[in-house]
């Protein structure tokens, strides 16, 4: 059985383990020395502080953001099979990343690069889904809007892939697989907004609990649906856009993590949101550590690993625990 202390202990253990494994051998003694500020070899210090630590923190922040967002989106849509991608954030980010890669930086000269255009794409697409859904009136309308706009975005990415050169196509494909190899401290500073967003999401817990009863019942519990819906969608879009912009698309964590938490720790969102953040961070950290050690010194895109691990696991979960998942 999972609980908060176990999650935190695993996260710390994962952090230390991940600091020590990789292409270059680093011992626990080195890590302690560096973290305590003792003089050790410049190489070890650089590897620990400038390469591995930012990458680890980025994995924890981004994975945590995706996990908590998945939990919030599943709650909002009252559907345990929902995923943050449903609100268009991933496909929108992917589309803008592809635009940047294919049409070129000239087109987006005002933006600082791939990450910024992906972030903007994620947010813009989400706003579009939100607006279409608002005119439809209900949460299901927004779900349908999300599906339609996702399809349009994916078609546009297909079009861009079709007209792109081989090099550009490789860029698009690689980005869509997700990777943390570009991690540096600047990325970590940007990603440190994610824990704040997760905190804001957890303030919505009681309302998320109420909305799982259905919109009509939630109104009778004193929940104003319209504002609540916008807050949840914008907060998750922010968290996921930051993640997607910095690392590319990371599959399956947003879907699987909240399920695992509900199975083991219950469905109350006061628990599910923070626990999904911790477990999401832990899983992405483990996956990323595996992705850079399995084929060291080469790297496997981490999105492939999360999908390979998450997919079969999810199938197993669905077959075994049907009733308890609420599907």
């Amino acid at each position, binding site marked *: 059985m999972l609980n908060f202390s176990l999650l935190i202990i695993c996260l710390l253990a994962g952090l230390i383990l991940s600091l020590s494994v990789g292409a270059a051998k680093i011992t626990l003694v080195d890590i302690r020395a560096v973290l305590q500020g003792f003089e050790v070899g410049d190489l070890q210090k650089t590897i620990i502080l400038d390469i591995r630590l930012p990458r680890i923190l980025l994995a924890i922040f981004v994975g945590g953001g995706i996990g908590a967002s998945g939990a919030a989106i599943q*709650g909002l849509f*009252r*559907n*345990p099979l929902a995923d943050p991608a449903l609100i268009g954030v991933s496909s929108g980010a992917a589309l803008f990343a592809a635009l940047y890669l294919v049409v070129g930086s000239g087109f987006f000269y005002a933006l600082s690069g791939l990450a910024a255009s992906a972030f903007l794409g994620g947010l813009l697409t989400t706003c579009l889904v939100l607006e279409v859904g608002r005119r439809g009136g209900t949460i299901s309308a927004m779900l349908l809007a999300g599906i339609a706009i996702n399809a349009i975005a994916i078609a546009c990415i297909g079009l861009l892939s079709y007209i792109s050169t081989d090099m550009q196509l490789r860029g698009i494909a690689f980005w869509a697989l997700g990777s943390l190899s570009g991690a540096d401290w600047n990325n970590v500073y940007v990603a440190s907004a994610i824990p704040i967003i997760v905190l804001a999401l957890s303030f919505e817990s*009681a*309302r998320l*609990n*109420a909305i*799982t*009863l*259905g919109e*009509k*019942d939630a*109104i*009778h*519990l*004193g*929940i*104003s649906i319209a504002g609540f819906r916008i807050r949840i969608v914008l907060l998750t879009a922010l968290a996921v856009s930051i993640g997607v912009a910095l690392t590319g698309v990371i599959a399956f964590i947003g879907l699987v993590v909240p399920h695992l938490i*509900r*199975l083991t720790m*219950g*469905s*109350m969102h006061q628990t599910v949101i923070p626990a999904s953040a911790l477990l999401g961070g832990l899983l992405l950290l483990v996956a990323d550590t595996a992705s850079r050690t399995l084929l060291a010194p080469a790297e496997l895109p981490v999105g492939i690993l999360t999908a390979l691990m998450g997919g079969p696991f999810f199938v197993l979960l669905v077959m075994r625990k049907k*009733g*308890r*998942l*609420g*599907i």
Partner: protein
Amino acid sequence: MSLRLTDVNYRIEKKQLLSDINITLRPSEINGFIGPNGAGKTTLMRVASGSLNTPGVTLNSVPMTALPIEYRACKLACLNQSSELDFPFKCFEVLRLGRIPHLTSRSHNERIVEDVIDRLGLHSLRNRVYTTMSGGEKQRVQIGRILCQIWDNLDSAFVFFDEPTAELDLAHQLVFFDLMKMLAAKGASVSLVLHDINLASRFADELVLLRSGRILAMGSPSEVVTKQNMMQAFSVDSEVYRLDARPLIQANIVIPD
């Protein structure tokens, strides 16, 4: 202390769902809403409980639309016909959701949940997962959630149930009506949308018979449940018998021909 609907009309696009509704829901009364399918019973319940923000509804003489939705949730509880809950909450967690509108302490809320579990005999379901329950069990839990919402202010509460007994067996139906009587005795105003005219006639203080969005008849069950009204509302030929078995069991019983 009353909830009043004055000349309420409600339409969706071109379809007139309710016309010229004038009703007063009073404390300590059980109101039954009966009528054929599509007569507007559910819509009327949603209008009265304030979830459609219709003009013409007042709570203690204050227009409902002027009351903040959080305040309404403390006074009015409403169980819709079908529950959409699809998440593996445990029974006691679902009950706890009823306390969301209130700013009362955690221990107070937990005491209320335990009281309601005692009152409804939900002990065996207490730690069960909602999504694994049968339809009737789910309904009992949802009824419990509604009770939790108003348990500590029954004397000023209005409760609405839309076909609450549809999924319940006979024994649990009677438990439910017993409970409604208890709520009314403590001062709550109870409104029930019911399909079973005999149960409605047996347990309601006031009946409202609806047809095509209009009130066809209202008053005590013996005034409303008559051969003519049944014919007019349902186009069903029936015999209505007066049951006077004991002083406590008096009701008009409808038997279709």
